[in-house]
């Protein structure tokens, strides 16, 4: 509790017409932690992330990211964050290298080429660097997507359902990337509907339900609570995954070292 919070959310509300999506969200996230925002579809996870990344205006309440108010200082907030949305936001017509260079140039960084070169190596995309992204697999797209988000080393990273729609291998690749990031002091707010994902990655977990944070704490703290009904279904997944992985083979991704 000694570190200043990287994200402070207080009484945040948002409605679409009559439909209330966020009904007063309160959450504090300390600098350098990974927090998973857990919730079923339509719980308001994406809406919250969009407000914090200045894509949406809240109706009421306050959101502060890296010390800047999202409503009154959106430009400074944008300097402090990176957003990886639910669908890979990459330019399919450009090559992987060009995508990275584009973001580096838009962030006004010198050496766009060197930055792209490093990230391609780090995310094991060097071989595919000169190929159009349209030819990439889902996992490669996601890796490129996250690599683009890291350019300029923003202190706060939003990952909105980073593994939804990915096959198990790609999912593990993404997990590994997120863990590496946290090791370097980046604050990560991750939304997910998969409990195992939250369990595997997050130091703290917040459960968003019907527009409010109903539980927030470490995994150990949460385990003392009765699991909500959705947990049962989701907890079966690792078993199925193990079956799947044992059939297809584990080697591909256990060796995914991250060359630095």
């Amino acid at each position, binding site marked *: 509790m000694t570190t200043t919070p990287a994200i402070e959310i207080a009484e945040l509300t948002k409605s679409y017409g009559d439909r209330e999506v966020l009904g007063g969200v309160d959450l504090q996230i300390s600098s350098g932690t990974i927090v998973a925002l857990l919730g079923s579809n339509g719980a308001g996870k994406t809406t919250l992330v969009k407000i914090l990344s200045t894509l949406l205006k809240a109706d009421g309440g306050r959101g502060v990211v890296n010390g800047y108010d999202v409503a009154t200082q959106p430009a400074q907030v944008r300097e402090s964050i990176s957003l990886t949305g639910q669908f890979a936001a*990459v*330019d*399919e017509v450009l090559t992987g290298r*060009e995508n990275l260079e*584009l973001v580096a140039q*838009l962030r006004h960084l010198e050496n766009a080429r060197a930055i792209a070169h490093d990230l391609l190596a780090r995310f094991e995309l060097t071989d595919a660097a000169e190929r159009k992204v349209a030819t990439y697999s889902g996992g490669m797209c996601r890796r490129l997507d996250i690599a*683009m988000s890291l350019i300029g080393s923003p202190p706060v990273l939003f990952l909105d359902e980073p593994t939804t729609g990915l096959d198990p291998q790609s999912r593990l690749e993404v997990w590994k990337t997120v863990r590496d990031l946290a090791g370097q002091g980046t604050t990560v707010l991750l939304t997910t509907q998969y409990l195992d994902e939250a369990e595997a990655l997050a130091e703290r977990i917040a459960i968003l339900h019907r527009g409010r944070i109903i539980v927030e704490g470490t995994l150990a703290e949460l385990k003392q609570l009765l699991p909500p009904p959705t947990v049962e279904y989701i907890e079966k997944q690792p078993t199925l995954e193990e079956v799947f992985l044992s059939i297809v083979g584990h080697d591909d991704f256990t060796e995914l070292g991250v060359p630095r």
Partner: protein
Amino acid sequence: MSTNTFHDTAVLLKRSLRHILRSPDTIITTAITPIALLLLFVYVFGDSIRSGHGRYVNYLLPGILLITVASGVSYTAFRLFTDVSGGIFERFQSMPIARPALLWGHVLTSVVANLVSLALVVAVAVAMGFRSGAGIRAWLAVVGVVLLFTLALTWLAVIPGLTAKSVDGVSGFSYPLIFLPFVSSAFVPTGGMPGPVRAFAQHQPVTPIVNTIRHLYAQQPVGNEVWIAIAWCTGVLLIAYVFAMRVYHRKTV
């Protein structure tokens, strides 16, 4: 701020120009409809429409240029729609990029792409016998009018590009623009049209624009019509710009 806008616009312009270079079919497709109309009207209907003074291709080209732009801006809307629906637009919006740059990158791309398509169409017209004794100043005036028209339609195209829910919605908006020249002086003089049609044809924006370009090519005085043409283009440009900006700001903080 303004240097950032300039820099960011340049980066984004380079990006969309790359898109066009990698799928030049959009430029060719843009030019095909007007070229087909040019061939059809000159070689099939030409003699019946206008037996008399001057080549029909000379009469027809100005209207065909406007149709080229109208079909070209549908790709502008399409490119913007692809960005918005694909998620990269949101990525850009969450980045510290000068706000106007996101739209200006697309607008300038539209201008460049349309100029290339227009050059193709003019080249075909020349091959078909189009000739003009217009001097450099008259040509520059033609380019100026066409450029203003392109900007007006481009900003109009930004609106469906940002708001459309489907690809069909995006491409649909340009059909009325493509057909507007048919009820104008673009293909036949308005004098022979029946009353109400004539009234519409003489008072819609395409007619003064077509007549202005035609007179510039024919080295005739442009008269009042050039001002009416400029007023129409500027008016549409301003209204479309204000609406597009309003839609854009509603989409962002």
